[in-house]
């Protein structure tokens, strides 16, 4: 275990100030809850001279519904998500993912922005936010853009942000009445940091017909992935357990998992099938038709 690098900590109280620090200081990195960053710095050498604390920036911490969108500020903690009635009722997949993460202590510090920017292929908020077709707002001092959530992930533990950029907000369209979503994961105690496989599904049904189906899996490739081919086979169809079973088997073949110390590729394929089925069935049952 290494000592922490010799960085200086900055505690800006506004987003503007934080962006300014990131733009001007050399080797500066944001820190939100620190639940990924501190263990990482204890494990490998991280070349950092300045840490910009985001946890004192009030304007980044919110959950609200506005103009047809559910909007979540980057430093919203996992505990904040779990405590939110809005998330529990409108986006149960996201709620279940947040509630499944780490421990109470970790959820009290860990943030949505940190989970995404850490860009672990197993990040538990990846699949539900993909299934909800969420977008992330990325800001620097002089630029502001929205990108699909999947584009935050650039590879295992690499995000797509430039060094002077921050992820400031996550938003997705408020799911309509009658939509259902669900999250499932398999992990091991103590491997708490990383699910072996996780999955989220989002379904809209109208007149017995599946209008929208979205399915995303995590820890089965270098980043969380949508299962487009599987989704196509569900849309426009009348859902049944048989169809869901068939589509889930397809997911087991679509994923490209790796063997690692935590699980074999074969096991991950099997789990992709099992979790796809569970998530789809649960999301479907939640569609109040």
């Amino acid at each position, binding site marked *: 275990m290494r000592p*922490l690098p010799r960085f200086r*900590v900055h*505690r800006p109280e506004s987003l503007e100030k934080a962006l300014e620090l990131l733009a001007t200081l050399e080797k500066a990195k944001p*820190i939100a809850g620190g639940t990924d960053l501190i*263990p990482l710095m204890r494990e490998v050498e991280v070349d950092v001279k300045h840490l910009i604390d985001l946890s004192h920036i009030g304007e980044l911490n919110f959950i609200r519904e506005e103009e047809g969108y559910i909007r979540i500020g980057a430093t919203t903690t996992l505990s904040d998500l779990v405590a939110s009635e809005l998330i529990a009722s409108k986006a149960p997949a996201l709620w279940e993912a947040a509630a499944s993460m780490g421990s109470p202590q970790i959820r009290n*510090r860990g943030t949505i922005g940190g989970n995404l920017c850490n860009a672990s292929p197993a990040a538990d908020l990846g699949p539900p936010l993909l299934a909800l077709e969420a977008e992330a707002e990325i800001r620097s001092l002089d630029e502001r853009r929205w990108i699909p959530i999947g584009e935050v992930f650039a590879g295992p533990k690499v995000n797509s942000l430039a060094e002077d950029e921050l992820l400031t907000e996550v938003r997705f369209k408020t799911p309509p009445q009658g939509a259902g979503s669900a999250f499932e994961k398999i992990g091991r105690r103590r491997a708490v940091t990383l699910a072996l496989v996780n999955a989220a599904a989002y379904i809209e049904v109208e007149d017995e017909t599946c209008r929208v189906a979205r399915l995303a899996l995590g820890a089965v490739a270098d980043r969380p992935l949508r299962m487009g081919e599987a989704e196509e086979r569900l849309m426009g169809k009348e859902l049944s357990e048989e169809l869901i079973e068939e589509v889930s088997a397809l997911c087991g073949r679509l994923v490209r998992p790796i063997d690692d110390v935590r699980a074999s590729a074969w096991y991950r394929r099997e789990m992709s099938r099992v979790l796809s089925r569970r998530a789809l069935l649960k999301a479907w049952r939640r569609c109040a038709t």
Partner: protein
Amino acid sequence: MMLRFKLNGEWIECEAEHNETLLDLLREKLGVKSVKRGCNVGECGACTVLLDGRPVNSCLLLAPLVEGRSVETLEGLRDKPIMRELIEAFVEDGAIQCGFCTPGMLISAYSLLSRNPKPSEGEVRRAIAGNLCRCTGYVNIVKAILDAAERLRGED
């Protein structure tokens, strides 16, 4: 850097390094020894403290980030009615063996009972999911927390 925060109800000022965790500051500079170092990476919960009333791992928290905030440890909580009852139940139910996990465990339990006076066994287990115990196998710990809750409700 100079750091000002509330420790167990009293504002203190102390010198802290930028790259120091709250755990190091508490144990090594402020003599708060109930807070234990187990894994140092957020997995065992031995270092649990309350930050603005919520349990967090002090090994993952940089000391400079507690500026202006409130930190509570067993030293400051031990005389609160909920904590007294918990400590008594832990002793009576054999929920302590080597005792290394106990302070962190008590803080998680305290946080639970402060919010939820009538937790189910499942809720107790979820509340202490971030606290590892190598000795007891958890059964007596869960029992002690449920017993303490019952006594606090006056349903002895």
